[in-house]
């Protein structure tokens, strides 16, 4: 929960303005962008995700660093399990 998951926004959900589709190492899921509503990110932007909510905007470079940290900490699989689990076992897959 402490460590965030980096993802790239690949789509904005038009019918729900605070939702975006984020890609994390090939897996695409919807995440909530509501906590970034003051300066909503757009397609192509990178964000750090906590429990299904984008919490901060970061650079691509920082996203790569964060993914490497997760890998080295042995948390990358748990992170991907988390991402795959968003939307309840992928039933909401984008």
């Amino acid at each position, binding site marked *: 929960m402490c460590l965030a998951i980096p993802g790239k926004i690949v789509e904005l959900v038009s019918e729900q303005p605070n939702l975006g589709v984020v890609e994390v190492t090939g897996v695409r899921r919807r995440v*909530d962008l509501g906590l970034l509503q003051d300066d909503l990110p757009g397609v192509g932007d990178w964000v750090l995700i906590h429990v299904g909510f984008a919490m901060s905007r970061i650079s691509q470079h920082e996203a790569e660093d964060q993914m490497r940290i997760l890998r080295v900490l042995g948390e990358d699989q748990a992170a991907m399990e988390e991402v795959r*689990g*968003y939307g309840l076992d992928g039933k909401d897959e984008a």
Partner: protein
Amino acid sequence: MKFVDEFRDPEVIGRTAEEIRRLADPGRHYRLMEVCGGHTHAIYRFGLKDVLPANIELIHGPGCPVCVLPMGRIDDGLALARRPDVIFSAFGDMMRVPGAHGSPLEHKAKGLDVRIVYSPSDALKLARTNPDRHVVFFAIGFETTAPSTALTLLRARAEGLENFSVFCNHVTIIPAIRAILDSPDMRLDGFIGPGHVSTVIGCRPYEWIARDEGKPIVVTGFEPLDLLQGIVMLLRQLKEGRAEVENQYTRVVPWEGNRAALRAMAEVFQLRPYFEWRGLGFISQSALRIRDEFAQWDAERVFSVAGVRVTDPKAAQCGEVLKGVLKPVQCKLFGRECTPEHPVGALMVSSEGSCAAYFNYEHRKASASMTSLAAPV
């Protein structure tokens, strides 16, 4: 250091470690607390202890939300799970944490409807798709997860969803730091401030630590170089007699934090007068409750919650380890009755818990080298 090669600029890391040695007064013993459980995990994983001079001691702080939750709250939550009309949902981290009568996972094995969710918004989704059941979300975490719960409750209200509630166990980091500083048996020289909590709260809430307590605090990232640079910044302040809030992790943490997240939290939560923390006891204004305006989504008010208090297993010394008074290995149960496979205390469950981190990286390593010594040549 074990994993430097996997990171950029090993030379820079070497130079930074050298600077630490230069800044540290050999006649002084430094006690620096990393507040965040993610940092504790990283420190063990990277073997940072091996590159620091012996007179720099890192003390593991209370920033592991699973670890600081008293067992009674888990039992209170599981009492809700036993209601036939309830679907009990929680993050995976919570599933193996033992309550007095077993963990959520063990309750699931007994046939209770316990579900893992990875996001509070998925608990909300469970409520939408199960209109004849009541979905309780067991909310846990510091300010990294509290805004998500807040936004989820705002969405529940907007949708008028009636079969959803949150059992709120969110805590806030600042009062925990205050409790540690107030603790008579604790002497600290400075703090490695949490990284991701600070993306939400920013750096200002730490200012009293520098101003009133005279302790430096540096908000720090999670890479080995980040941690070493954070330590350099702390040592530099100590050497120059300064006590300030500094931000090493500027590439992610804005000084003002995330205002939208803080707004959502303020709208939905208010401070509880007091809350019990494992190891730290009751701390005033240290946890969040759901505001009256959202009472119909507050599991503690929708159901009657007993408010169970459970003493930790007598031999376990989770409290002393949480406060940084004991090292994990000094607990009588460590590595014997209490292991990651069979945890007695929560610090052995979460990867952010100092006992699990110590067990996985130090204890296993030591055991392996003992085995290789004992093996016939």
